[in-house]
């Protein structure tokens, strides 16, 4: 079966971002960018499905600026067969991304679509669910285990109190949680080979999708800073301060 994986180019998870002085957003100039960590897990899961003989082709798709081709090449080096970039310079909302992905799903007809559960920049946690709604497919969000058998997929999900397993009819949408797998690194020969794999570039217009949004970001501020704390010398002093100064115990 064909598996479609969506990946996003985001600021690297180790970077401590700074808010711009004019409060228009965060400063992303000259900041290291990477593939969203949850998307890496999504690519890894697809590659493992292919290694097990379940998946026959992996198509990786990204929606974003021209530079997102770097993340698509990374996914190709990890084992994806071909890539699609839907090029858009604007910052799109999750709904716009879901609509674009729906157009790609209609075109490619995958049996399984794997996304990360959230992007670490916008922290929205919406796109997979929205794509599932638009396509009418079942959704297995926050997956920690995925097992395809016949025309259905069993997904074990991380929920607030523990874990839940649901069965979804294929085609279906799965979003990955951290514990689904440990992503591999791309080897140098595979990075070289990935340069020759096909990468198709589309536009929202070509897909016939409007990316208009009902949300507007008015400003972005730095969070309130915590006032500096003190170092205590002993456990006794700590207990004394918690009891008498902070009055929390």
């Amino acid at each position, binding site marked *: 079966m064909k598996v479609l994986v969506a990946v996003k180019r985001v600021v690297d*998870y180790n970077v*401590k*971002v700074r*808010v711009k002085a004019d409060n228009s957003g*965060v400063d992303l100039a000259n900041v290291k960018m990477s593939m969203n960590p949850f998307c890496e897990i999504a690519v890894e899961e697809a590659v493992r499905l292919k290694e097990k003989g379940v998946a026959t082709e992996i198509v990786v798709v990204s929606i974003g600026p021209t530079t997102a081709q770097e993340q698509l090449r990374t996914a190709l080096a990890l084992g994806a067969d071909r890539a699609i970039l839907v090029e858009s310079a604007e910052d799109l*909302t*999750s*709904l716009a991304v879901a609509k674009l992905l729906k157009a790609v799903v209609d075109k490619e007809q995958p049996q399984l679509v794997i996304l990360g*559960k959230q992007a*670490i920049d*916008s*922290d*929205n*946690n*919406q796109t*997979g*669910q*929205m794509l*599932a*709604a638009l396509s*009418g*497919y*079942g*959704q297995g*969000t*926050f997956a*920690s285990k995925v097992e395809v058998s016949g025309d259905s997929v069993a997904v074990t999900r991380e929920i*607030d109190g*523990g*874990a*839940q*397993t*649901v069965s*979804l*009819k294929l085609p*279906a949408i799965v979003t990955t*949680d951290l*514990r689904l797998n440990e992503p591999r690194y791309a080897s140098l020969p595979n990075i070289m080979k990935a340069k020759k794999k096909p990468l198709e570039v589309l536009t929202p217009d070509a897909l016939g999708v409007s990316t208009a949004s*009902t*949300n*507007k*970001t008015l*400003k*972005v*501020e*730095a*969070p309130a800073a*915590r006032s500096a*704390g*003190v*170092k*205590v010398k*002993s*456990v006794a002093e*700590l*207990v004394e301060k*918690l009891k008498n100064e*902070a009055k*929390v*115990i």
Partner: protein
Amino acid sequence: MTILVIAEHDNKVLAPATLNTVAAAAKIGGDIHVLVAGQGAGPVAEAAAKIAGVSKVLNADNAAYAHQLPENVAPLVAELGKNYSHILAAATSNGKNILPRVAAALDVDQISEIISVESADTFKRPIYAGNAIATVQSTAAIKVITVRATGFDPVATEGGSAAVEAVGAAHDASTSSFISEELAKSDRPELTAAKIVVSGGRGMQNGDNFKHLYALADKLGAAVGASRAAVDAGFVPNDMQVGQTGKIVAPQLYIAVGISGAIQHLAGMKDSKVIVAINKDEEAPIFQVADYGLVADLFEAVPELEKLV
């Protein structure tokens, strides 16, 4: 303006996060209706009717809603939601699972995890693991929003006397089915609602050593959390994880033991009122947010702390 709040429950008990969500709805202003979608969840609907400020409870009782499968619940919420100005749910695993599906069905953008209400159409929410706060305005006719519970003080469980109305609508997409559930058992307070949280990280070295934290937590009436490192190493189950990808807590007192303080962990606890860090590495980033820091070996400090409190 009428606001629809989706109740969080397990068919038996109304989850406390619903009270924080109603508090957010009260800040927006207008009539507040609560939807209880489940199977045999009558007691939940009755509890919801008593919540202060709620004027109506809609009880959708159907086998299709028993396990909150989004394929079935989302069409119900989208159908009922057409008559409302706002649809709110707590940013729990259920709320996050269902609400974006509702938003897409209504063709509107969603606003996730709001921490404050500026006006009926403008909200604040953290982005980049809490390192920036965005003020977002929605021009959608129906505003679909998830609420971060720790951003709002819960409303009273008593004082309301709303009418309970049965909703007949049954949606069964038959694209998904429930197989099983495995819930972690704990006698301690729930992590997201606890007044005191004691958390352990990689410094605990193994799962057995968490007994020191459990002993301390029991003495303080606290919940026990963990960093991703402790969960990934298999010391404790993943539902104990505090952070950007785990649970968000904001207790009165947060005690971080053997946790270095990565950005992703801080995202889940830096709104705690008082933070205490116990770590033997005095350069650990956790000390930059801690109100009280103790540079010490946790295996000596924690048992001593347990004796003294």
